[in-house]
C-alpha cells in the first residue's frame, strides 16, 4: 500500500481547509449558530417540549447533521473536482496509487474536516442551549459514519460534475430539502400519517433519528434501522466509486 501517497493527498486536502478556514469552518458555524439563536433561543423558548426534551435541545442533532451532510458533500466534491477543473488530476492519475488509496486520501480528509466541524458546532451550541449526550460513543460513531458516508457521496458528485453548477445542485436542491423534511425541526410523529409514511423514504430521517437517539435516547425509528440504512447508503456509494474507477468514468478517457 502506498501510505505516503495517501498521506500526501490527505495532508494536501487538510492544508486546503486551513487556507480556507473562513469558508470551511467559520461560515457553517456562524450559520448554524443563527439557527440556534432563532429556533433554539428565540422561538424555542415559546415552543413546547418534544418527547420531554426542550425544543432548543431537540433540534441540536438535526442542525449538526445538516452541517455535517452539507460539509461532507461539499468538502469531498470540491476536493476531487478542483484537480479535475485545474488539470492537476493528471498527477493523481499517473501516480502509483490505487483507487482505494485515492479515496482514502480525499474522503478521509473530507470526513475529518466534517467531524471537526460537527464537534465545533456541538461545542458552540452549548453556548445557546443546554443539552446532554446520553450515548457519547454512539454519538461520535454516528458522526464519523455519517461524515464518511456523505463524503463518499460527495466524492461521487465531484467526479460526476463537469461544472460548478452541478457541484452545487445536489447539496442545494436535494440534500437541503431532505434535511429540512427529515425531522431536523420536528418529530415525524407530529406529521399526519400519510406524511409519516412518505418521510420514511427520506434517508436523512434515519440519520437524524439515530443521531438524536445518541443524545437523548428517543428516536423516530429504531436505532438499528438507522445504522443499517446508513451502512446500506455507504455500501451503495462504495460500489459506485468502484465502478467509476473500473470504467474510468469522467477520469480516464
Amino acid at each position: 500500500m502506498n501510505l505516503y501517497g495517501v498521506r500526501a493527498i490527505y495532508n494536501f486536502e487538510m492544508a486546503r481547509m486551513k487556507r480556507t478556514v473562513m469558508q470551511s469552518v467559520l461560515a457553517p458555524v456562524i450559520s448554524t449558530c443563527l439557527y440556534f439563536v432563532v429556533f433554539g433561543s428565540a422561538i424555542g423558548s415559546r415552543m413546547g417540549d418534544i418527547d420531554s426534551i426542550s425544543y432548543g435541545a431537540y433540534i441540536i442533532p438535526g442542525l449538526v447533521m445538516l452541517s455535517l451532510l452539507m460539509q461532507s458533500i461539499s468538502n469531498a466534491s470540491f476536493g476531487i473536482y478542483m484537480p479535475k477543473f485545474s488539470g492537476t488530476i493528471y498527477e493523481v492519475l499517473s501516480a502509483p496509487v490505487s483507487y482505494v488509496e485515492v479515496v482514502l486520501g480525499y474522503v478521509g480528509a473530507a470526513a475529518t474536516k466534517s467531524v471537526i466541524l460537527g464537534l465545533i458546532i456541538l461545542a458552540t451550541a452549548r453556548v445557546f442551549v443546554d443539552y446532554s449526550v446520553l450515548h457519547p460513543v454512539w454519538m461520535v460513531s454516528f458522526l464519523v459514519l455519517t461524515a464518511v458516508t456523505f463524503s463518499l457521496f460527495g466524492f461521487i458528485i465531484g467526479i460526476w460534475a463537469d461544472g460548478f453548477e452541478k457541484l452545487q445542485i445536489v447539496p442545494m436542491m436535494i440534500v437541503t430539502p431532505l434535511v429540512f423534511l427529515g425531522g431536523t425541526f420536528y418529530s415525524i410523529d407530529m406529521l399526519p400519517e400519510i406524511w409519516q409514511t412518505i418521510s420514511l423514504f427520506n434517508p436523512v430521517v434515519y440519520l437524524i433519528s439515530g443521531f438524536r437517539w445518541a443524545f437523548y435516547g428517543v428516536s423516530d425509528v429504531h436505532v438499528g434501522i438507522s445504522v443499517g440504512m446508513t451502512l446500506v447508503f455507504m455500501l451503495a456509494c462504495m460500489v459506485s466509486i468502484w465502478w467509476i474507477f473500473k470504467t474510468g468514468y469522467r477520469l480516464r478517457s
Partner: protein
Amino acid sequence: MQPDISVKNLSKVYEDGFQALKGVNLEINRGEIFALLGPNGAGKTTLISIICGIVNLSNGSVTAAGFDIRKQYRKAREAIGLVPQELNTDSFETVWNAVSFSRGLFGKSPNPAHIEKVLKDLSLWEKRNNRIMSLSGGMKRRVMIAKALSHEPQILFLDEPTAGVDVELRRDMWEMVRKLRENGTTIILTTHYIEEAEEMADRIGVIRHGEIILVEEKDRLMSKLGKKELRLQLQSRLEQLPGELTLEPIELSEDGYELIYTFDSQQQQAGVARLLRTLGDLGIEYRDLQTRESSLEEIFVGLVHE
C-alpha cells in the same frame, strides 16, 4: 539490453470513435533522449498519456522500466515522471509544498535534501515559499519539472516543455535535460521546436495520423534524409539554364544571377565537382559560392507532408 519503454501494437480509439493511435510499435532505450515529433493531433500526447496511465489503451501492451503499465502499474508509474503540456499547477500552494506533495504521491518518503537540490537546480530555491499563482509562466514551467523530478524517476516525459518560455529558460532546460541524461535518466521529449530535437535528441521518432512513420538516430536521419544545397553567385547574368546543365537538379534564380544545385547529403561531392567542371567548360564564371545542409525541420516537414 531491455528497453526502458516498450510499446507493442498500441491502439487507442476514443469514445467518439476517433482513432488516435493505430498499432504503434516503439522501443526507447535506457538513458537516451528520444524526441517524438509530429504535427498537431498526430497522437503524441495520447501516446504519452497512455504510457503514464492517464488514458486507457484500447489494444496492445506497454512496459515501462520492464513493468507492464496495467498489471504492474505501481512499479511502472514509480519509474515515470511527467511534465505535461499544460501549466496545470496548484495555484494556492507554495512551491515547496507542491513539490513535496508530488514526492509523497509517488510513494517516496520525505527527503527535504532532494527537494532542495531539485529546486536549486531549477533556480526555484528563492521562490520555495512563494505561492505558485504568484510565479511567472516560465517559473511555473520549472515547478512542473521539479514536481516530475521530485520522486527521482528513471524515465522522464517532457511534453512540449519549452512551449511559451523565453530563450534563456529554454537553454537552461536543455542543459538540465543533458545533465539528467548523464545521470542515466531516459528522456522522452515531444516538441514543436524542431531545433530543440535537433539540439538534444539521440533518436527521433516521427508520428503522423496515429502511426509511427520513422524512428532513426538523429545523425543518421540528418545524413540519410537531409539535402545539401550549393548556391553559386554568377559574375554575369544568365538568360536561361544552358542545355548541358538541364540534366542536373539545378535551378536558375529569377534574376539570372544565381545557380542553385540541390543534392543528397550522402551523394557527396561527385555532382559538385562535375558541375564546377561543366561551368568552367561553358565559361560561366562565379564570384562566390555557399553550401548549406537542410535542417531537421525541413526533413520533418518533408516527412509529414509526404
